[in-house]
């Protein structure tokens, strides 16, 4: 019985009550993930592809050779000839991944294909993926978004002689689409983690159980006095005291410690200090973050310190693949590299144990056969001995023990960075393998990425069929610009419900089956009837109906002809029910937007109103559905950081738990440290974000000496935070070519200056770093094309360089804002693109991330006049556009 496990919790007075509370609060997460898993199966990913150009092929080969060299150099001294590893160069055909023209792809789709071991050149037949159409991925180049395949897609000899099959195959090949069998591994692990915690709460996991326990007792934290600091050596440095406080609390907290820090406030430094102090105490640490950069920044910093200090406190193991690990300094510590290089040398040593003694023969005789057999046992020794195992929240799932579902010896402490982007189930997967947890992040930065498809499927689970159709049609008809619908109903009961819904919303509806109501046809916005009646009366219903719901298979040729005469083909025409907008879809994206705008209440209001209008008018039905929506919202959207600080909402329960209301105030204050000083940005750059996003908490204050630390003599800009107003002329959605040209032009100015101006102080030999950011992928693509031309690096996608021979003076990163969280650059060129509508720019969290990446210079490029005008409906964007912190003027020096 699960109850036995609850009995083991040391401070558990009533196990059955706790079990019921935990079950009630965690089960919705499990159910959500279960439905999401089904949705995942239903929606296989697809992506376009093309053959690489000759230039790209040369680049790909060069880059692969370079990787091979890096791998060799990380393997230390030369080994015996007979055991010398010759790196097997994978053979195959390179192809370039690209968006399908009709469907701009998200980053996640590219990532999924670049991580895949196997892809398909045809979609699944039902749920079956034809073996003969699978292609193995031999290698990948993340930067160039290219994969090396075992064969060219579409070249597989078709087993059938059916001409129709051949024709379809040819069509697929012509379309150049690749498919990915859904990989539900991460979803499964999250679901299992929820069940594991709920069903098997061991004493070590009591604190995690207490997140859902309304009677949880939280012990007082008595900070640990650190004797010798590693990174935080200067107490006079702005914010060092806060960082030290955090480390001392985290060292002693019996359960959780939280660090909230705005951009550039030294979260990474504090994490590094904590890791080193824990290592001194002999503790094993698991470090995870939602991005590779965040993990690698910590590792890089620690390894750099160890090299300089000559003190070895940490032996890290990085879980991840070469392509994903962002730092070259970290790559030698990737698990497979460490294992392969050391294991080969170990074999050599055991074959010829020079300098050893015969007394060690017996132990070597134990080790030798095991090493000869394989590296698994040795790998286990390294993983168990390492005092810092790290990876991304998804990547850590590749830890051999986690992957095989084995129970790991729990880590003493788990540190999760960028927790604002991590959901509770994502957190729990690694958290189950630790005894204490340190949560680091900034809830004013980006929220967890939510797969809309998962949310839609879950919404369909709570409202579907005629009920969903009824609510959708009533919602559309009651909008400010009403859209009229015709619904086919199977029975009188459904018809009555539609009439009731319409009446409650003061809409006019017509039951086509009732001739007495036909006189209202000209005034109605909702029409319904049985399929036979609809067919019979098709000439009488209005021709400007927007939506046909449930009318698939009906013969409505006359109506269609009339409709065409009015408006062209109707939106629902020739589309299947599932492709068309439906209730779940309308609700899903609004729920996500409302969550994104949770710090921008005013702008969230229209979405709240829409969500209310998507619910039934009947109060009983409405309350029930409202509760279900709230349940979905709380399990899918909030980050673990928000949960600890504020909870995810109560669902109407009287009892308060961490999951519903956050940690109790006193408990939170004992465990939470906020860092208030920033050490990244020139004060002029931090001014707006400080006032707009952190004023209430008094955070993002400039550290002493920031202005002096960010001195440079780049003459083009008079101000450090600048807005280049680029009125938008081109009309393409999410692309602004004028802004692209401005970005490139500014980059040229900077590159010209950077060629002869090195970075100040200790970084003199390092190139300047420029980030070109935008909110939209289509704009990113345009920027990429221009950068490829400018830098003459046609195979690159996100990182470019400008230089001369061996010397590089500017390193450029192109990214979407969402992807760039956790990174920084000397100069940031931010392209807004938007004009005419705010899009998702009005998310305070996203805008905060965008505006806080620059060290020396922030240049905003966009249609400022529109954003500052009354036509921009986002108050946040208007504030930004009218802010005195962003100047118009470019330096007079360049105009001279």
């Amino acid at each position, binding site marked *: *019985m*699960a*109850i*036995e*496990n*609850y*009995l*083991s919790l*040391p401070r558990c007075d*009533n*196990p*059955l*009550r706790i*079990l*019921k509370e*935990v*079950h009630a609060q965690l*089960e919705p997460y499990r159910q959500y993930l279960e439905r999401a898993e089904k949705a995942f199966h239903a929606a296989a990913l697809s992506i376009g592809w093309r053959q690489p150009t000759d230039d790209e092929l040369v680049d790909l080969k060069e880059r692969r050779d370079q990787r091979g060299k890096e791998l060799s150099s990380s393997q*230390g001294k030369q080994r015996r000839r007979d055991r010398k590893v010759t790196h097997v160069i994978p053979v195959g055909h390179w192809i370039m991944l690209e968006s399908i023209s009709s469907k701009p792809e998200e980053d996640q789709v590219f990532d999924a294909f670049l991580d895949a071991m196997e892809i398909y050149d045809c979609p699944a037949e039902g749920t079956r993926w034809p073996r003969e159409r699978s292609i193995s991925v031999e290698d990948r180049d993340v930067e160039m978004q290219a994969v090396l395949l075992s064969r060219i897609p579409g070249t597989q000899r078709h087993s059938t002689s059916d001409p129709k099959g051949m024709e379809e195959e040819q069509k697929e090949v012509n379309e150049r689409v690749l498919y990915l069998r859904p990989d539900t591994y991460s979803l499964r692990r999250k679901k299992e983690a929820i*069940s594991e915690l*709920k*069903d*098997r709460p*061991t*004493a*070590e996991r009591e604190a995690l159980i207490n997140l859902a326990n309304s009677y949880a007792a939280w012990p007082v934290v008595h900070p640990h006095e650190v004797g010798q600091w590693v990174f935080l050596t200067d107490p006079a440095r702005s914010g060092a005291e806060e960082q030290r406080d955090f480390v001392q609390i985290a060292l002693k907290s019996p359960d959780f410690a939280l660090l909230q820090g705005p951009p550039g406030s030294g979260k990474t430094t504090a994490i590094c200090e904590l890791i080193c102090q824990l290592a001194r105490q*002999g503790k094993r640490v698991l470090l995870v973050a939602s991005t590779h950069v965040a993990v690698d920044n910590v590792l890089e910093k620690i390894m750099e310190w160890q090299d300089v200090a000559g003190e*070895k406190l940490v*032996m890290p193991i990085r879980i991840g693949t070469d392509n994903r690990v962002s730092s070259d300094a970290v790559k030698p510590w990737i698990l497979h590299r460490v294992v392969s290089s*050391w294991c080969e*040398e*170990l074999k*050599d*040593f055991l074959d010829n*144990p020079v*300098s*050893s*003694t015969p*007394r*060690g023969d*017996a*132990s*070597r005789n*134990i*080790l030798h*056969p*095991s*090493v000869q057999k394989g590296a698994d*046992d*040795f790998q*286990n*020794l*390294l993983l*168990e*001995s*390492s*005092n810092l195992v790290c990876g991304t929240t998804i990547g850590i799932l590749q830890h051999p023990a986690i992957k095989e579902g084995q*129970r790991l*010896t*729990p880590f003493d402490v788990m540190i999760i960075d960028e927790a604002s982007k991590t959901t509770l189930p994502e957190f729990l997967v690694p958290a189950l393998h630790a005894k204490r947890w340190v949560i680091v992040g900034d809830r004013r930065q980006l929220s967890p990425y939510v797969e809309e498809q998962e949310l839609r499927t879950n919404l369909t689970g709570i409202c579907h069929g005629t009920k969903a159709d009824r609510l959708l049609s009533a919602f559309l008809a009651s909008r400010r610009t009403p859209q009229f619908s015709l619904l086919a109903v199977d029975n009188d009961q459904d018809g009555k419900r539609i009439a009731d819904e319409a009446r409650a919303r003061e809409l006019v509806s017509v039951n086509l089956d009732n001739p007495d109501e036909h006189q209202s046809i000209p005034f109605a916005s909702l029409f319904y009837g049985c399929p036979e009646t609809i067919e019979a009366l098709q000439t009488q219903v209005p021709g400007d109906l927007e939506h046909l719901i449930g009318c698939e298979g009906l013969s409505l040729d006359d109506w269609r002809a009339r409709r065409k005469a009015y408006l062209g083909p109707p939106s629902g025409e020739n589309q299947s029910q599932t492709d068309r907008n439906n209730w779940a879809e309308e609700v899903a994206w609004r729920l996500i937007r409302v969550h994104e705008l949770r710090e921008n209440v005013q702008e969230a209001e229209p979405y709240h109103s829409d969500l209310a209008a998507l619910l039934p008018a009947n109060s009983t039905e409405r309350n029930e559905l409202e509760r279900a929506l709230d349940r979905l919202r709380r399990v899918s959207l909030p980050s673990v950081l928000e949960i600890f600080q504020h909870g995810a909402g109560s669902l109407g329960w009287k009892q308060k738990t961490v999951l519903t209301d956050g940690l109790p105030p006193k408990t939170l204050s004992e465990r939470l440290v906020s860092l208030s000083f920033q050490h990244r940005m020139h004060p002029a750059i931090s001014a707006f974000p400080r006032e707009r996003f952190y004023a209430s908490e008094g955070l993002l204050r400039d550290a002493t000496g920031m202005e002096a630390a960010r001195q440079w003599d780049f003459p083009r800009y008079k101000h450090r935070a600048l807005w280049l107003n680029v009125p938008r002329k081109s009309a393409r959605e999410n692309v602004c070519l004028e802004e692209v040209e401005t970005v490139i032009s500014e980059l040229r100015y900077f590159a010209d200056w950077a060629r002869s101006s090195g970075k100040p102080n200790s970084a003199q030999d390092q190139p300047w770093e420029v980030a070109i950011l935008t909110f939209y992928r289509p704009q990113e693509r345009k920027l990429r094309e221009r950068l490829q031309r400018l830098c003459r690096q046609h195979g690159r996608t996100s990182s470019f360089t400008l230089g001369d021979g061996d010397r590089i003076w500017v390193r450029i990163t192109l990214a979407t804002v969402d992807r760039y969280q956790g990174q920084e650059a000397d100069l940031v060129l931010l392209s807004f693109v938007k004009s005419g509508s705010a899009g998702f720019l009005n998310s305070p969290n996203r805008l905060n991330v965008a505006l806080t990446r620059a060290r020396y210079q922030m240049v905003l490029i966009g249609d400022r006049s529109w954003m500052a005008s009354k036509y921009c409906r986002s108050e946040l964007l208007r504030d930004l556009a009218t802010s005195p912190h962003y100047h118009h003027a470019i330096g007079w020096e360049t105009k001279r």
Partner: protein
Amino acid sequence: MITLKRIVQVQSFECSATVAVEQESAAFQCLAQLAADFEGCITPQLVQKELYAPLPLHACQLAIKRCVDLKMFDWIDQQQHIAQLTDLGEVMVKNSRILIPQQDLWRFYLVDDPLVPNPLVHLEWVKAEPAHHVVSKEKKGEKISGAGDATPALLKDLVDGQPSRSLADRTLRQVRDVSAKGKIHKSGTLELRLDWAPESQPRVSLSGTLQDTKKIALDQAMTGSLLPDWTYEDLWIELAAAASDSLIEDIWMIRERFGHLAIPGWFDTLDSQERKSFEKTLETPEIGLESIGIFAPSMLQQVSLFPGNETEAQRWCEWLQFEQVTNYVTPDQLRDQAQKVLGKFPFHRPQALEPDAMLAQALSRTNDPAMRHILAPADLGLWS
């Protein structure tokens, strides 16, 4: 040979616990072996020199630290990362396995019996019933007890004790920690059998099936100093005395005086086979023996018989003389047979009947068909 049996109760208890379970890992075992080969002491430098030469010294330090966490080593000087092999580490070396702790829900099968040296006869990992089953059972009105039972002292006493092998699957494990509460599970029984042959160690075995969904057959023997307060003779005499009317002192006296284990035999109480073999099988009653508990009724096989006194010996001897006559005999032959019979009474001095005395008795028992073997040759003049 003594064989005793009894039924023992198996108490099964489910609770969350940390149990170190054996695992094969050459990468760690070799470290234990290395320490064992260097007087139990290990340093990072030694590890690097003898085993893991390619690893940096820091990695060797961490490997030793991990072994300390696993209780394979103890620190001698933590600052210098110098450690020594623990008793548990020695067990690991001896068994060529390392013990890895696992916190989980376990079911412990415990036998509280003085003859079972380690009460933990077996343990198994239990897959917890999902919480939603408990909730739905409760919704259906099923009574769910959330109180739990206190962890038996027997189990608590095992924490950090010597590792032992399961009698069911022979895996080596050590209980590291148990929660204060758990649930008593279904109890079952096993048959305990004590076999003790003279001049050897007693052997105790448990057999039967552990009561659970998964039937676990047990038939494992434990040997060693299981009965420190008893010798074979003590137990044999105790059993023989209880099974016969003899006094313990008498049996001891026989043992002391004549050097072997036997009970006094009374001619009239013995059947012809027992008189001939000087042995009998004793049925021991249910018996409670100090420090080793109560045993079920049993049999003590081949118990030697010793004539109770000279008169008994005389009667027994005469009876045996006639029993020897199975064919036509002459007086000389009877004298030879009498010598053999007398040889069966090394500790008594019965007088063998002379042939004439036997003939006289045969003449008085003419109805006894066996007597014709004496009478017929006498009648035929073969005796003159």
